[in-house]
Each structure stands twice: as C-alpha cells, then as structure tokens.
C-alpha cells in the first residue's frame, strides 16, 4: 500500500524548497489524486483528471506525430508553467511554477523529486 503521508511529506518539501514552485500533485495514470499541495481554490480531483488526460494526450501526440516517447509535457502561460512528468507506471507528477522560475533549476528540482517518487512507486 502506498504511504500517502510520505507522499504528502515529499510534496510539501518540494513545494517549500523553491519559492517559484507554486504547487504540485501526484496523480494516478487514470486521473485520481494521490497527494497534492496546490494553491487555494484549485479543485484537486479536477486537476488530477486533467493532468492524467493531458499527459496521455501528449503521449498520443508523440506516437501519432512520430515524436518518440514523451519525457514531459510543458504548458507555458502568461502567469507561469504547468509541467507534467511520468513517474513510472503508477503515477505522474504535476508541477506549477511561477513565470520567474529559472528553467535549469526547476528541471533539476523536478528530476530530483521524480527519482525519489520512482523509488516509492517501483
């Protein structure tokens, strides 16, 4: 059984570790929330379903348009970034970051947490 307390702890540390990270969620591939640290007002369940659908749509685009396997889906908006990453077969990670976030640092932090999550899910 997945330890949701541990997942919550990892997420909270991740979000608190970098001021430009505004929120994060761990979601099952079928769109259910496992743990989240999202900004107030965001519907956790809706975010989970959207994230899973978006990542699988990215995978579909990768396959249909011959882009190969997808590492991440990045949505760049006026206010910031939404990044979706696969964490193995059982989970995916959503990260919300402010526009001012430095891409290099952000990617390093995401890589670190994904490695940590993969250990839990594998």
């Amino acid at each position, binding site marked *: 059984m*997945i330890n*949701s307390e541990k997942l919550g702890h990892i997420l909270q540390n991740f979000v608190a570790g970098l001021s430009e990270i505004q929120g994060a969620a761990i979601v*099952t*591939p*079928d*769109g*259910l*929330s*496992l743990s989240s640290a999202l900004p107030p007002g965001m519907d956790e*369940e*809706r975010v989970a*379903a959207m994230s*899973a*659908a978006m990542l*699988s*749509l990215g*995978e*579909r685009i990768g396959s249909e348009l011959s882009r190969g396997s997808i590492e991440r889906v990045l949505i760049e908006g006026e206010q910031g970034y939404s990044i979706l990453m696969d964490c193995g077969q059982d989970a995916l990670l959503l990260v919300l970051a402010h526009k001012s976030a430095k891409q290099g640092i952000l990617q390093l932090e995401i890589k670190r947490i994904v490695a940590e999550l993969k250990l839990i899910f594998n």
Partner: protein
Amino acid sequence: MKVSKRAIRLKLYYGESFNMTNATLTETQLRSELGDFNSIICFRALITGLEEALGEKAALISAIAAGRIRGKNLVAELGLAGQKPALEEATAAMSQALGKEGTRLCIIDKIEATDSGYRVYCRETVCSAGEPQGSSRTLSFTLGAVQGALETMMGQRLRGTQVESVLRGGQYDVIELNLR
C-alpha cells in the same frame, strides 16, 4: 409537503430541470417528440470517437472523470452524501437511480464490503453493451459513476478497477473499489 417516490425518481432523472413542486406532473420530457432516452449506438459512437481523436487512454480518463461527477451529483441529489448508508440501502438507491426505473446506465445487483473497500456487481452496463465476446473493452463512464457515487456516500477516496467482465466470461461487470 410529502414527496412521492416517483417525484424523487423524476428529480434524479431530470436533475435540476425537474421541479419538485410540480411533482404531480406525470412526465417531464426534455424533448417533446423523441423523449429523453437515446440509443446506446450513439453513446458508443461518442466513446469510440473520443478514442479515435484523443487516444484510448485520454478518452478513458475523460469518461471516468465524467462518470465520477455524475455519481457525485446523483448522490448529492439523493441526499445521501456523507450519510454512510448500509450497503443494502446504497445498492437499492443506486439501482433505482441508475437502473430500469432510472437512467438505465446499468443494473446494480449487489455491493459487497471487502478488506480494502467495496466490490460492485453490475449487469447490462452501457459500456459493455453491444461489444463482441472477447472484446478488451473496459468500463469507463459506468465505473466512474459507481466510484463517484460510493465515494460521496461513504466520504472515502476510492480507486476503481474492473476485475471481471461479461465480455470475458464473467456473469457480471465487477468493479472493485479500493481505498486510496
């Protein structure tokens, strides 16, 4: 005001468009000539069309999510949100709302408690209807609706998976819901 069972059923069926104060109306149709049911053929075309456009996985996620919202709203309308009813009562309420007397999504024969959640036995699900024996198709909207309804009734977060299918030798489409 005493509200008849029929009025409750109509309210569940029509949602907010049915006014309980008009409970004496025999039928409220959303369409004057065709009535309120449409064919499973069109439902299947919607699902297969979404699969074609978005891919099977994204379509599945979307249909499950839509079903969960339907299940949650249904239970809220039934006044059973967070009420933790006995499983017999939950089965009866869901059967009436979703079965022959309701929207005809499926027949729910039984809900069992398991060590880690629930097991729901469904028949004649709209998701499996018309599929050939041996088909790999799984429940989507139906699974979501059952999950959303039970989550809201019981105040628990569940994860649903289909563990048996009438398309693959089962007597029922069985949904297992585990606590997450």
